[in-house]
């Protein structure tokens, strides 16, 4: 379903992704793990047409995301690392907006929105503006939205960041169910090793832009002689802490908080 060959991305002199190759089969849940700044999000951006690779080949369901952009875009749904819903619109309007952009016919659109919002337990709140939603509800809405156009692949970039254990647990249950019922191929990244251990069929570990190991959780543990996936992860990527600079987004959030207080 996803095939990546010798993928490279440089930002100026900095190599963010250096020559990675992997394959994800149809109906598989594939976890992409790595420390901060390892190249996870850059890879997802290249897979989802947001960034053009410096070199290498990507194939989504047999399509090339750089050449057949719009065809490829119809094939996947994505939940980004940072929120991407419109706060001023209601849950239903956010879904409807997505459905129109993806050309889901009106009747089918209404049906699927209802089904997905019910599945993710948001139907009762469908007419509330998203700005009133909690972090967990927003996440659920984003996943529901990503599935609206019946994609073949679902990308989840750290979908459980900042959520409480109950919400995380429920979210993965939904994802597993959809994977089994709709045969959606899932490509996810997370920092919670036990989550990857629980839901993923196969795992790749990326560090400094390179894939350092891939296989099932059991294979990775065996390879490193570790008891848990977390130990295996640390054995493969080392124990040094990677600092990321405060991004523009963090600064903007601080500014918007100040702004809201004033008006």
């Amino acid at each position, binding site marked *: 379903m996803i095939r990546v060959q010798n993928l490279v991305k440089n930002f100026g002199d900095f190599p963010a992704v250096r020559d990675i190759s992997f394959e994800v089969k149809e109906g598989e849940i594939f976890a992409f793990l790595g420390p901060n700044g390892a190249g996870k999000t850059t890879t997802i951006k290249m897979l989802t047409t*947001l960034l*053009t690779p410096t070199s290498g080949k990507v194939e989504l369901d047999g399509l090339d995301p750089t050449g057949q952009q719009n065809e490829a875009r119809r094939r996947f749904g994505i939940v980004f690392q940072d929120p991407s819903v419109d706060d001023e619109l209601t849950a239903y*309007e956010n879904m*409807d907006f997505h459905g129109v*952009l993806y*050309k889901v016919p009106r009747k089918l659109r209404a049906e699927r929105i209802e089904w997905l919002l019910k599945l993710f337990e948001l139907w009762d709140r469908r007419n509330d503006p998203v700005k009133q939603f909690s972090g967990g509800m927003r996440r659920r809405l984003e996943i529901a939205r990503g599935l609206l156009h019946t994609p073949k692949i679902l990308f989840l970039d750290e979908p459980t960041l900042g959520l409480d254990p109950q919400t995380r647990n429920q979210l993965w249950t939904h994802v597993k169910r959809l994977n089994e019922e709709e045969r959606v191929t899932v490509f996810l990244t997370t920092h919670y090793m036990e989550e990857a251990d629980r839901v993923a069929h196969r795992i790749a570990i990326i560090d400094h832009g390179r894939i350092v190991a891939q296989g099932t959780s059991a294979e990775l543990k065996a390879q490193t002689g570790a008891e848990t996936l977390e130990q295996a992860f640390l054995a493969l990527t080392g124990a040094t802490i990677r600092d990321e600079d405060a991004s*523009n987004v963090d600064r903007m959030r601080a500014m918007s908080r100040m702004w809201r207080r004033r008006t």
Partner: protein
Amino acid sequence: MNAVYILWLRQLKRYVRSRARMIASLGQPLLFLLALGFGLGPIFQKAGQGNYLQFLAPGVIAMSILFTAVFSGIELIWDRQFGFLKETLVAPVPRLTIMIGRTLGGATVAVLQGLIVVLICLAAGFRPAGVAGLPIALVFMVLVGVMFTALGTAIASLLSDFQGFQLVMNFLVMPIFFLSGALFPLSDAPRPLQWIATVDPLSYGVDGLRGALNGSATHFGTAIDLAVLAAVTAVLVAIGSYLFSKIQL
């Protein structure tokens, strides 16, 4: 087509729902009308130029459209920072369609804001010369709206955060407004000021709007106003679309 509509609808919904912003943005035109219109009115009259409020109103209407339109375009930065832009950019919709939907939405919001200011001007004592000029006035309002939404979008495509926003306001938008002849008659202005006004696209918007609403003689001529505005709008939409299509996240 549906994509353009839903993008347009989104801008409109956001505008209607943020009443605080709507009311806040009416403060400035109101202040101009009251302070300048009534404050400078007697002097304007003594200088033999007639009713200043009547002269000023079209300028204030154009100003509110200019500010709202640029801001609508700049909102793109907001969408980028809060992630919603990604949602539209990964959708199977050409960038040009997204740009068109956004621009039409922003322009509609700007024209609506302009129409509210028209009502305020009427309340303040402004009287249009007749109904015949109103459709032409609307054409000018739409052109000014589209032109500056496209300009805002073009600028926002180049900026990744709000750091540069003040710079744009103070060194681009404010001069565009103050040097456009919105506040003073261009024909009596010193030569250098007239030259500057000639390269300021808003001058043509204000001039055309004033001619249409007041039934008075225009500085450049209505046909030239229309031609210049249409040409500059086309160029800015093209530049905006190009820069928007180059955005990488």
